[in-house]
């Protein structure tokens, strides 16, 4: 009996010691890095599973401050280990200002898409603005830009319940990435190819006209998407956003998504552009962030729970678990964004 008790006591002591060791060793080894992150990746960085993986495999905690992709390049970088913007323009701008970073790598991708409601998508189909192929809906950006420039009203395309003219609501291109990339996409469409320096004299006034009609633009992609879903078809009939936003929403809010899924429609612009989430390491510690985020399981979670495509412009094999109809697994019609110099001029003109 006595030996049994002693044995139990010893066992308990070993367990406690092991637990203590685990806690202490983990605490000792964990490195915390911090930097600026575009708001659309916060769901992923706050994900417990992702955090656990980073901590257990890489002894890493990623702390962040939310900032716009363009905004963060000009921010005070003192004490920051990394920047995590949502496009490569930001990297180019960084290089112009500070030279080559310690290391940089694209860790996720997601295409720019438009979101709308069933009735609007239907009306757009009827006038040949949207076409469906293999269950995926594609929108002709050049034609859409034409409607906006001509000041065609919603009523004229068969939607009298909507007030005003056809417009795509975006975030402020000078502050937020999705708005910025939509401006790039529109510039490409209007230029009939990737917009170049020599296209600008013609392009800038047209872009100013299109964006000028939008008036107040939200400063965050997440807020714009949130308002699109919450305030109904009338308030935001058509917005620009990321494919990942809806996929993540469907996973995180399955019950709400069930109520909305028959009404919310994702449209792929033809051609679209990739939002490339490039991790810019500013120091050695930040560089560890790249390795950690490229971990196979982190990449898997990024797609399955947050809708980010992984690998270099990767084609994911499976999207059924999202319960989102019309996801284009294989995107062929993608064009590069205009170069950083051209984008800078576009942003300046729209400011």
């Amino acid at each position: 009996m006595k030996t049994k008790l002693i044995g139990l006591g010893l066992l308990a002591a070993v367990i406690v010691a092991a637990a203590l060791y685990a806690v202490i060793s983990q605490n000792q080894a964990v490195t915390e890095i911090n930097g600026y992150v575009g708001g659309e990746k916060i769901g992923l960085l706050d994900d417990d599973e992702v955090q656990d993986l980073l901590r257990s495999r890489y002894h890493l905690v990623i702390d962040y401050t939310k900032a716009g992709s363009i905004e963060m390049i000009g921010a005070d970088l003192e004490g920051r280990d990394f920047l995590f913007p949502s496009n490569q323009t930001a990297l180019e701008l960084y290089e112009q200002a500070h030279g080559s970073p310690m290391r940089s790598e694209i860790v996720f991708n997601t295409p720019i898409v438009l979101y709308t409601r069933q009735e609007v998508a239907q009306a757009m189909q009827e006038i040949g603005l949207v076409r469906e192929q293999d269950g995926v809906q594609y929108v002709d950006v050049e034609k859409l830009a034409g409607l906006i420039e001509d000041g065609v009203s919603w009523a004229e395309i068969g939607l009298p319940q909507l007030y005003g003219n056809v417009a795509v609501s975006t975030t402020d291109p000078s502050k937020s990435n999705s708005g910025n990339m939509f401006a790039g996409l529109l510039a490409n469409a209007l230029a009939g190819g990737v917009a170049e320096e020599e296209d600008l004299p013609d392009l800038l006034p047209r872009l100013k006209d299109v964006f000028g009609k939008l008036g107040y633009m939200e400063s965050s992609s997440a807020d714009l998407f949130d308002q699109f879903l919450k305030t109904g078809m009338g308030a935001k009939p058509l917005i620009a956003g990321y494919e990942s936003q809806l996929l993540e929403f469907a996973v995180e809010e399955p019950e709400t998504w069930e109520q909305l899924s028959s009404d919310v429609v994702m449209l792929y612009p033809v051609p679209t552009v990739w939002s490339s989430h490039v991790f810019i390491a500013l120091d050695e510690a930040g560089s560890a962030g790249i390795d950690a985020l490229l971990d196979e399981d982190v990449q898997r979670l990024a797609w399955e729970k947050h809708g980010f495509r992984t690998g270099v412009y990767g084609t994911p094999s499976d999207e059924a678990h999202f319960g989102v109809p019309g996801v284009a697994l294989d995107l062929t019609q993608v064009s590069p964004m205009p170069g950083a110099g051209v984008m800078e001029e576009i942003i300046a003109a729209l400011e």
Partner: protein
Amino acid sequence: MKRWRQWKRWLVLPVCICLLLACASCGKESGEADAVLGSGGTVLRIVSGSENAELEPILEEFANREHIQLEMTYLGSLDIMRLLGEEEIPYDAVWPASSLWLDVGDINHRVKQAEPISVTPVVFGIRQSLAEELGFVGREVSVSDLLGVIRSGKLRFCMTSATQSNSGASAYIGFLYALLGGPDMITEEDLQSETLREQMRSLLSGVERSSGSSEWLKEMFLQGDHDAMVNYECLILAANRELENRGEETLYCVYPYDGLSLADSPLGFLDSGNDKKEEAFRKLQDYLLSAETQDAIQRTGRRSPYTGVSEENRGVFRADWGFQPDRVLSPIRMPAADVLFDCLNLYQTEFKKPAINVYCLDYSGSMSGNGNRQLVDAMEQVLIQENAARNFLQASEEEINILIPFSDVIMGVYIAQGNGQDLEDLFPLVRDTAVGGGTNMYAAAMEGLRQLERYDLREYSPAIILLTDGMSSGAVQPFEQAYRESGLDVPVFSIMFGDADATQLEELAQLTNARVFDGRENLTEAFRSVKGYN
């Protein structure tokens, strides 16, 4: 863009004023809440649009259940926006009427986890029989239709101040679009138009009474005798419930299709690194967004995010009152920030009915020391225009300011027209007048009424503002009689100073459908509130 930067500076400057005031009111707790719900170790101080006062029973249930004390302070949404630009924000959460003001005002990115709680459009509520007479029942109505009847004098209405409250600002932007002939977007050039100026002034001359926030407007509407108000759909509904209870005529809800805007009521957290508060905030937000609470919120006439109005609650939005729960709410676009602020500045200085402010200034013996100092500091904030402009309190060119210093006698009447040197010249007089003698504020208020009788008050927004400690000899009856005989609908506001006693002041406010403010706590707020009413 430049103007926008200027605006950012404005957002920061009021801090200085607040610091000054903090000294002027040494020892006083600042920012006393308008409502304290529940009790508990964790306190959430929430600054909110007054329309959320209607949700107090729902909030109180949460506060009691979770032992979290909710302290509600009500302010107009634009005033909340301004607050966000200040260095110190003495609140844990913000709850303005619309996300727009969070997005514009939160220049330092301090608001976290903001989520819309409910959705309600800004509409016109018009007395049923009048709505019928005007032909607005059972058909689509445009802003121009409304402008037509307002300009011909058939419709007079109440509306909150466009520079303080979201509902007033939204309606005003809707008016601008309509008067400009429905452009894609309002531009700076549009605003320079002389025709616009003339038309907007004639339109706003139809405003009978105003206020600094929407619930206060509803309360004032219910106390007064008015035909219509611009307000949230949910507050028109609340007013109708009260009117029906009283057996009075209800309002018919008109949705101007080309001038509609939506309030999405975002509740956001102001992070101060206090985990307990953050947890309490999350609990509150989860509670408000839960299916059960959303159901209760819908029954107050608000729509739910995502889904609108549920089948069971459709009946709340009564069709006989003109409500359309299934309507696709398609709002106008708000102009970019710099143009938006130009619009608001024009409202304040050019478009809205000019005010006549009668300031009755207490120089009685009891005001000596602190009280007098506070009074002089206060008048410096409204008379010196550079100070006033920082808080959208600047006078317009046609504004009339009348000063009546008093003790137990009227010490004089001083009048300044416009916003020039005449107005600023009144300040040395305020500063140098000596304190002494007894108090008779009723006599001063009566003198104020006599002064106002000399003007055509349809052309002005009049208000009498008492700056006093409220301890007066004399009686209210003679004033009451004079007030009734004059037939004037003039509010008598009070701003309290020194060792104030509110009893007599409340009596005057009650009688004249006005309010009493504590100038020792937050003077800027007090002035902004008073000015919101005229």
